[in-house]
């Protein structure tokens, strides 16, 4: 008998002995393994059902996503419709109207003419005294 055959015979015997060890596993352990198996199968079923229940929510989720997408697109496009240059025009026009309609403001502006004349005279006077 060769060494390889001896190993094979040894392996065969070892396998028989190991299987005998498996057969001798007590009823309590077998029962607990059985329970563990059923728990695992139930867990697999839960996961599978969760997947399906997730699928049933897909139409609602899709509609909500579409609505958000439309809102986003509209929001993005809104500033491009109105040219930025015209944004300040109404405010400027309102300010001009205020100045034209306010009598005090016009009087004040007329009064400033005298101020400039007075300031020029003061400046000339100082130049003469300096020189």
């Amino acid at each position: 008998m060769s060494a390889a055959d001896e190993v094979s015979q040894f392996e065969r015997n070892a396998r028989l002995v190991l299987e005998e060890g498996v057969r001798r596993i007590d009823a309590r352990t077998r029962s607990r393994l059985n329970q563990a198996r059923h728990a695992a199968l139930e867990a697999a079923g839960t996961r599978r059902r969760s997947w399906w229940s997730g699928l049933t929510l897909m139409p609602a989720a899709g509609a909500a996503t579409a609505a958000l997408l439309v809102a986003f697109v509209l929001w993005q496009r809104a500033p491009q419709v109105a040219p930025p240059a015209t944004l300040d025009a109404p405010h400027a026009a309102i300010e001009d109207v205020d100045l034209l309609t306010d009598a005090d403001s016009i009087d004040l502006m007329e009064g400033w003419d005298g101020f400039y004349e007075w300031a020029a005279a003061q400046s000339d006077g100082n130049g003469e005294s300096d020189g």
Partner: protein
Amino acid sequence: MPEFATLASPYSMPAALHGDVDLSDPEAKTQTRALNQFLAGVELKAFKIAQAALRHEDDALDAVQDAMLQLARAYAGRPAEEWKPLFYRILENRIRDMQRRRTVRGRVMAWLPGRADDEDDDYDPIAQAASSEPQPVRQLELDEAVGALDAALKKLPPRQQQAFLLRTLEGLDVAETALAMGCSEGSVKTHYFRAVQALRAQLGELL
């Protein structure tokens, strides 16, 4: 079965009646049946392998249970041919985790007086000894061989022990064993060869 078909029509029954498994889905039913068959076929051998590695019955049961759960949750959808190496890969990882945790716990417990040997409290040498009741000679020889092989397996390094049990007890081929052990086929051959040599040296006369 016709007698069950008369109890209620499919329209009057909810889709899922047995736990959370949707029994109305034939594909799910087939897969659940196949998974049940697979797990029933490996659970005892897996327990023996875990017990040899962990040397503790409850820990071995926990390891097998965790491996079953993980396979069912994460890999039930994979082809059935892949289940066995995947299952033993998960079991191997679980065993390693438990051994690592046990090592850390052992280091901590070593600091506490009188607690270091708690791991072996469940081991009862009298209960493990062969019964004194008269038995046929063949049965006595078998008892002796089972005990001696268990003891010799416990002395093997973990990787040799695993390679030997996966190949000999579970019947995985070299490629499947490599996948289960997370190593190369060459490593499997080496571990297995050394395991057989060591066991033959110890049990050559007995087996």
